[in-house]
């Protein structure tokens, strides 16, 4: 039937050829040509393609579209999500007495990130618990203390949280960003950079350059920054006249005005982000936190391709290039901290070079002492341009707190005992994600 439809079309195109003459555009259908002949050429519509409207759209099957009435549901199996108590996470609650307790993110912070953009598995966890709550660990307090220490002068190197998959790197970064936002910092929090490199968002080449820009992603990031710390941004003036496209922003305008302009003009959003990072890194009025999750994407080969169909490395995407100098020690913050977290969820975006530097193989010491002292010996390069903060296993107290929380949230139905906690800790080797899987799996 399709063959017949195609034959029919080619016959129609032959007829159309006779009607329109030698200047016939191959893609025009007979109906269009006849209409043009009678009513004049319509130059407001493209003739290269036709959108067929009114055709019945195919409904995609979805398992979630079925609705179940819970009126006669068995109360033992179907119960409402319990209301779990959790302290709100802010500058006042982020103290040592909050360790081993669950803390809840504010509504404003969650809205600034966006509902479907939580890092890693945290989105499904929050839905299960009924609220966005995470455990406040000892490492969290360490990071908060360091953040407070960098409010006067920033460190010379960026920091990167590294650890096994499921150790809680993204969670720690999220808590730190929430505390910083509540403390009045300027927070530039990229909660997930995997969509920046996995070719799921539009990209476009930059004129007269071999770089590519991603306007939609940049606009999303600017929107998140403005929603998270608008008050802090209004406190910092631009300090110099900035020309963006055809518009000029005076030196008296604030960073908030710059971000808003970037949001209104998506094509200039990348330039606005570059200026924002420039000014925020050199000003001394308000401390800054630049937090990048999945930081390994800054050095990976992306899933994008250039016009010659060659794989694009990350340093040819302007959005990633905005953050790369901070982690390559080429740029520092005068007042604030640059921190990232690695991710092993998508191994294609973890370069072998970075992986070997983060987890170097054990080196055999050279037996000959004189040879070992020779500076010309080539040794595997493990030096990194940033500081690595290793995230280790959970402690037993933290595991207790976690299991008690799962009990309150009805994820675990049996009573929490020493033996139960020890069993879960040993089976998971102290990994929070493995512990969660062990309590939620059937076997």
């Amino acid at each position, binding site marked *: 039937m399709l063959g017949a439809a*195609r034959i029919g*079309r*080619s016959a129609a*195109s032959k007829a159309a050829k006779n009607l329109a003459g030698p200047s016939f555009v*191959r*893609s025009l*259908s007979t109906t269009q040509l006849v209409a043009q002949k009678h009513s004049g050429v319509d130059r407001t519509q*493209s003739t*290269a*393609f*036709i*959108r*067929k409207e009114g*055709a019945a759209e*195919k409904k*995609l099957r979805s398992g979630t579209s079925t609705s179940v009435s819970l009126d006669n549901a068995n109360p033992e199996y179907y119960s409402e999500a319990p209301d779990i108590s959790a302290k709100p996470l802010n500058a006042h609650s982020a103290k040592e007495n909050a360790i081993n307790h669950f803390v809840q993110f504010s509504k404003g912070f969650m809205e600034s990130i966006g509902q479907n953009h939580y890092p890693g598995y945290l989105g499904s966890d929050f839905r299960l618990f009924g609220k966005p709550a995470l455990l406040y660990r000892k490492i969290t307090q360490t990071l908060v203390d360091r953040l407070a220490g960098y409010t006067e002068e920033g460190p010379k190197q960026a920091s990167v949280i590294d650890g096994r998959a499921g150790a809680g790197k993204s969670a720690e970064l999220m808590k730190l960003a929430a505390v910083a936002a509540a403390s009045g910092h300027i927070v530039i929090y990229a909660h997930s950079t995997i969509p920046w490199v996995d*070719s*799921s*968002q*539009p*990209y*476009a*080449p930059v004129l007269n350059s071999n770089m*590519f820009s991603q306007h939609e992603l940049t606009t999303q990031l600017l929107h998140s920054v403005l929603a998270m710390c608008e008050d802090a941004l209004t406190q910092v003036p631009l300090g110099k006249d900035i020309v963006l496209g055809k518009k000029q922003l005076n030196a008296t305008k604030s960073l908030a005005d710059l971000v808003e302009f970037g949001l209104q003009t998506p094509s200039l959003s990348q330039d606005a982000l570059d200026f924002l990072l420039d000014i925020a890194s050199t000003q001394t009025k308000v401390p800054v936190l630049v937090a990048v999750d999945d930081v390994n994407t800054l050095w990976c080969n992306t*899933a*994008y*391709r*250039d*016009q*010659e*169909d060659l794989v694009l490395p990350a340093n040819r995407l302007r959005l990633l290039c905005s953050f790369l100098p901070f982690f390559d020690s080429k740029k520092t913050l005068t007042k604030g901290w640059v921190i990232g977290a690695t991710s092993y969820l998508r191994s294609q975006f973890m370069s072998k070079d970075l992986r070997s530097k983060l987890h170097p193989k054990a080196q055999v010491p050279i037996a000959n002492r004189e040879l070992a002292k020779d500076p010309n010996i080539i040794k595997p390069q493990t030096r990194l341009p940033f500081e690595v903060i290793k995230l280790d296993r959970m402690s037993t107290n933290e595991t207790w707190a976690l299991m008690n929380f799962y009990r309150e949230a009805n994820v675990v139905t049996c009573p929490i005992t020493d033996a139960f906690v020890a069993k879960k800790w040993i089976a998971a080797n102290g990994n929070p994600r493995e512990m969660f899987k062990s309590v939620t799996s059937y076997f």
Partner: protein
Amino acid sequence: MLHLLGVNLPDQKIVSVALTYFYGIGPLTSRKVCSRLSIHQQCKLGELTEAQLNQLSGVLSEMTIENDLKRQIAANVQHLRQIGTYVGKRHAMGLPVHGQRTRNNCKTAKKLNGRWLRQYSTGPAFGVFNAPVSKRL
């Protein structure tokens, strides 16, 4: 539904998959076309703007696809037959062309190989008989 260069393409399909609906475009060529136009891998046809669709149409118009390609292949096979090559004779007989065995197992060749000469022949290219030899046996 998008009608592009004589082919109906469903809007909800990913562009690189939808382009393979054209005769003469496979996954590799489709990917190259998308790279040339800076269309990301997860882009669906319905998300393309008019300007992008015009560019896509322009790029596809430069390529030999659909009927043009079929005509070219038929002409190549006819040429091989006309100059009397071994390959041409095998096409005419509807038998395997690349040296495969014919004692058994040449079902696909017998079904498909004669089609370029059968479809586009304007006269009795093999003399009186039009059907391939394998069909008459």
